[in-house]
C-alpha cells in the first residue's frame, strides 16, 4: 500500500468503529474514500454532495444543533457525523450542523458502509438502530471483560492493591519495622535504586532479630533474606500459591520489566476467595471492638476492587457493599447496647440515602436517623443520644464519614418519636420548601436497619397515606430532579456542557448517577411505589406505567453503565492507593465508552425533558 494510504488506514484503525474491522477490510478501505475540505462556517452536511456518504472528521470540528438552535453536540477528529446512510444509523433528522473550524473530512459512500455493515457484525453494532441496544451491548461487554477472581485466572499483578512499600538495605532494623508498621504490611522490600537486594518479613523480625538479641540499631541488611524467589506480574495466582507452599514462604516479590512492583503474600491469595461480602459480614458479626470493625471495613475498598475485576455491575457492587455497611451498623448498635444496657423504649435505626437504596460504593458518607416509640419519656432521650453518638462515631471510624449535612441520629432533630416524624413528613409533603426538597433525597429514601418492634411500618404507612392525598410535592420534586443535568458529550479531550462550555473533567456522580436516582424517586412516588432501590424503582415504575417500559429499561441500562464506569474508575484509584473520587476525565475513557456515555447522557436528557413537561417543572423551579 502507498505511504499516503497507509497513513489514512492507520488513522481509521485508531478510531471507533473502524478499529473493529479486520485487517483485510481496513486495507481496502482508504481507496474507497474521498476527501473534502470545508471552510469554517460551512453548513453541514454540505448541500452539494451528489451521492450520500458518511463524513469522518480528520481535522477540524462540526457543531450540531437541534431545531430550537440548541447546541446538542460537537464533533472533532476521528468522530463520525450523522449520515443519511442506511436504516438505523444516527441521521440528521431534526438537526442542523455547521463547521466550527476549517475541516478536512473523509467521505465514505453509504453503499460501501452498508456492505461493511453487512459483512462485519461487530462493526455494524456501532450503527445499531437504538442507542439502548448499544448500551445493553456495552454492559454485556463489561461483564464479558471480567477477569474472574478465581485463583486459576487471576494474575498476581492484579492483586497488588497498593503502591510498593520499600526501603534501602542500610536503614536500621527499627526504621524498617516502623515503615512496616505504618504501612500495615507484613513484609518490606529492600532496594538499591531499582534493584531488588532483599526482603524482610514479620517472621524475620521475630526469628532473626528479637530471638537472637540483635540490636534494632543494626542495619536491616543483617537480617534480610538475600536470595529471593520472585514471580512475574503475569504469574497466575495458583502458581504463586504452589511456589509459596513448596518453599515454605509467605511472601513473594512481584517483578515487571522495570523492576520490583510489590509483594504478594499468602494472605492476599487466600483473600481472593474470602474478600467477598459474605466473609466480611461473618467477621463483622464476631467483632468485639470498634478497632476490629474498623480494620474489617478497611477491606471494603479491596472488596470493590475485586468485584470490579470479577465483572460485577454497579448494582451488584452496591448491594454487596451496603450489606457490609448494614452489618457494621447492626454490630455497632449491639456493642452500644451491650455497653449502655437495654433501651428504655423500642426504637428503629433508619438509614437514608445511598445506604437505604443499597447503592453505596466503598465508604460513602453516612445518613441515618432514629425513630423512637411514642411512649418515650423526656429523660429517656439521654440513652438514645448516647446510643446514636456511639454508632455515628463508630461509623465514622469505619470510614463512613459524618454526614456533611448533619443528617445523623446524633442530631436531636433526627432522633424523634413516631408522632414527630409523622409531623415532619406532613410538613414536607404539604409545604414543599427548598430545605425539605434538599432533605428529600435522604428521607424519601429510607430503610429500617434495626427495628425489632416494627416501628418503621407504621411510619411508612402514614407517609404513603399522606402522599396519596397531596400531589403538589411531586411536582416540586420533579423540578428538583431536573437540577442535575448531564453533559452533552465530549469534544476532543474535553467535556462538552450544555450551552457550549467545556470542562476538563466531569463529576460522574452528580451529572450521571444522581439525575437517574432523582428521576426514579419521582416516578416511584408518583405511582405510590414503595421500592427504594433505583433499579427496582425504575422497573416497578415501568410496570405501573409511571413511564414507558422502554424508557424504564433504557434508564436501567444507562444507570448500570454509568454506575459501572464509576465503580471501575474508583477501583483504579483505590488500587493505586489514592482517594476514590467521582471525577472522570475524557482521557480515562475509550472511544467506545465515550460513545456509550454520550448515549446515556442523551437518554437522561430526554427523560428529564419529558418529566419537566409533565409537571411543567419550570413553574416550581
Amino acid at each position, binding site marked *: 500500500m502507498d*505511504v*499516503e494510504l497507509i*497513513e489514512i488506514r492507520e488513522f481509521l484503525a485508531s478510531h471507533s468503529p473502524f478499529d473493529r474491522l479486520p485487517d483485510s477490510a481496513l486495507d481496502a478501505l*482508504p481507496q474507497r474514500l474521498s476527501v473534502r*475540505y470545508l471552510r469554517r462556517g460551512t453548513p453541514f452536511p454540505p448541500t452539494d454532495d451528489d451521492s450520500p456518504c458518511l463524513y469522518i472528521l480528520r481535522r477540524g470540528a462540526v457543531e450540531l444543533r437541534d431545531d430550537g438552535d440548541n447546541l446538542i453536540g460537537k464533533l472533532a477528529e476521528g468522530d463520525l457525523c450523522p449520515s443519511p446512510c442506511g436504516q438505523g444509523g444516527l441521521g440528521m433528522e431534526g438537526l442542523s450542523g455547521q463547521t466550527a473550524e*476549517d475541516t*478536512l473530512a473523509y467521505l465514505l459512500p453509504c453503499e460501501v458502509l452498508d456492505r461493511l455493515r453487512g459483512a462485519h457484525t461487530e462493526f455494524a453494532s456501532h450503527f445499531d438502530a437504538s442507542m439502548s441496544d448499544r448500551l445493553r451491548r456495552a454492559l454485556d461487554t463489561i461483564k464479558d471483560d471480567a477477569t474472574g477472581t478465581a485463583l486459576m485466572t487471576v494474575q498476581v499483578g492484579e492483586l497488588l492493591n497498593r503502591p510498593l512499600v520499600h526501603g534501602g538495605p542500610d536503614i536500621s532494623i527499627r526504621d524498617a519495622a516502623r515503615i512496616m508498621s505504618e504501612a500495615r504490611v507484613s513484609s518490606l522490600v529492600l532496594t538499591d535504586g531499582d534493584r531488588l537486594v532483599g526482603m524482610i518479613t514479620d517472621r524475620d523480625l521475630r526469628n532473626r532479630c528479637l530471638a537472637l538479641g540483635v540490636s534494632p540499631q543494626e542495619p536491616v541488611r543483617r537480617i534480610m533474606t538475600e536470595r529471593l524467589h520472585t514471580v512475574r506480574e503475569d504469574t497466575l495466582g495458583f502458581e504463586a500459591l504452589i511456589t509459596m507452599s513448596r518453599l515454605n514462604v509467605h511472601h513473594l516479590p512481584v517483578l515487571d520489566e522495570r523492576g520490583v512492583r510489590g509483594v504478594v503474600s499468602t494472605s492476599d491469595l487466600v483473600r481472593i476467595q474470602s474478600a467477598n461480602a459474605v466473609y466480611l459480614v461473618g467477621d463483622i458479626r464476631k467483632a468485639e471492638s470498634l478497632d476490629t470493625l474498623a480494620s474489617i471495613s478497611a477491606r471494603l475498598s479491596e472488596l470493590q476492587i475485586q468485584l470490579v475485576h470479577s465483572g460485577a455491575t454497579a448494582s451488584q457492587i452496591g448491594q454487596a457493599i451496603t450489606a457490609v455497611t448494614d452489618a457494621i451498623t447492626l454490630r455497632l448498635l449491639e456493642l452500644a447496647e451491650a455497653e449502655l444496657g437495654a433501651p428504655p423504649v423500642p426504637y428503629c435505626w433508619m438509614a437514608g440515602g445511598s445506604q437505604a437504596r443499597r447503592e453505596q460504593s466503598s465508604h460513602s458518607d453516612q445518613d441515618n436517623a432514629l425513630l423512637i416509640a411514642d411512649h418515650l419519656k423526656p429523660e429517656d432521650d439521654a440513652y438514645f443520644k448516647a446510643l446514636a453518638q456511639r454508632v455515628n462515631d463508630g461509623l465514622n471510624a469505619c470510614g463512613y464519614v459524618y454526614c456533611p449535612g448533619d443528617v445523623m441520629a446524633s442530631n436531636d432533630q433526627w432522633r424523634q418519636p413516631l408522632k414527630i416524624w409523622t409531623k415532619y413528613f406532613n410538613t414536607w409533603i404539604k409545604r414543599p420548601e427548598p430545605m425539605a426538597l434538599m432533605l428529600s433525597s435522604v428521607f424519601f429514601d429510607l430503610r429500617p436497619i434495626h427495628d425489632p418492634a416494627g416501628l418503621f411500618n407504621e411510619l411508612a404507612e402514614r407517609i404513603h397515606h399522606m402522599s396519596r392525598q397531596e400531589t403538589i410535592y411531586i411536582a416540586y420534586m420533579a423540578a428538583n430532579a431536573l437540577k442535575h443535568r448531564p453533559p452533552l458529550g465530549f469534544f476532543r479531550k474535553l467535556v462538552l456542557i450544555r450551552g457550549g462550555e467545556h470542562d476538563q473533567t466531569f463529576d460522574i456522580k452528580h451529572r450521571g448517577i444522581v439525575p437517574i436516582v432523582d428521576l426514579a424517586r419521582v416516578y416511584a412516588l408518583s405511582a405510590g411505589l414503595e421500592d427504594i432501590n433505583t433499579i427496582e424503582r425504575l422497573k416497578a415504575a415501568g410496570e405501573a406505567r409511571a413511564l414507558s417500559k422502554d424508557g424504564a429499561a433504557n434508564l436501567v441500562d444507562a444507570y448500570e453503565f454509568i454506575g459501572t464506569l464509576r465503580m471501575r474508575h474508583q477501583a483504579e484509584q483505590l488500587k493505586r492507593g489514592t482517594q476514590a473520587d467521582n471525577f472522570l476525565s475524557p482521557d480515562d475513557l475509550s472511544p467506545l465508552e465515550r460513545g456509550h456515555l454520550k448515549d446515556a447522557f442523551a437518554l437522561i436528557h430526554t427523560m428529564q425533558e419529558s418529566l419537566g413537561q409533565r409537571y411543567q417543572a419550570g413553574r416550581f423551579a
Partner: protein
Amino acid sequence: MSALPLDWRRRWRLRRLAACPLRDYLAAPFPQPGCDYKAVEYVAVDLETTGLNARRDQILSIGWVRITGNRIHLDSCRHRLVRVTGDIPADSAVIHQITDDEAARGLELASALPELLADLAGRVLIAHHARVELGFLDAACRRLWGKGLLVRTVDTQAVARRLLERRQIPFKASDLRLHALCERYNLPRHGAHNALSDAFAAAELFLAQAAHRDNGHGMQLGDFL
C-alpha cells in the same frame, strides 16, 4: 499565456505528432478557464528528482492523485518509482530517501510517464511550485516523443502568493512552502517526504484554497490559473 492560444497550440501540436502516448494525451481538449472550477477535473502531481536542473537531472518517482471539483479521490492515488541511469547523488537521496537499489527496481520512464499522461488527459495539473514538475515532465516528453508537454496548470504556491499579496500580508519565502501552508489551513501533517504524500498535500491545499476563496457566487477555473 492566454487561454485560447494554449488550446490552439494543443491542436497544432496534435496534428504534427505521430501516434504516441503524448499524442493520445493531447487529443483530449483542455478544460476552459471560463468553466466553473467545481466542474473541472484535476490531477495533483509531485516529482522526486536527482536534482533541480530539468535538463541534467532525472526523475526518481512520480506521485499523483485525482480531484473532481472539490473532492480528492483516494482510489486514484498513484506512486511510481522510476529507474535512473547512473548513481543517485547522495545529497538528494538524503531528502527523498530513495536508494539506488529501490530506483533500480523502478519502471522505465517510458512506461511510467504514459500512465500519468493518461490520467492527465482532459484535466488540469496541480502542483506546488509547478515550475519544477513542468520542467521535468516537459524535458521527459521531449526526450521520449520529440515534443514538449502542454498542460493547463494551477500552481498552489502561486495561488498562495497572490492571495497574500492581494491582502497585503507580509510574508517570508518559507511561508509559501507546502508544509507551512498546510498548517495554516488546518490540514494534517503528512509523514514521509514522498512524491505521493506531497502530491496529496498539494491536492488538499488546493481544496482549502478553493474553499477559502469561494464566496458562494461561483468561481471559474481561470481564477486559479
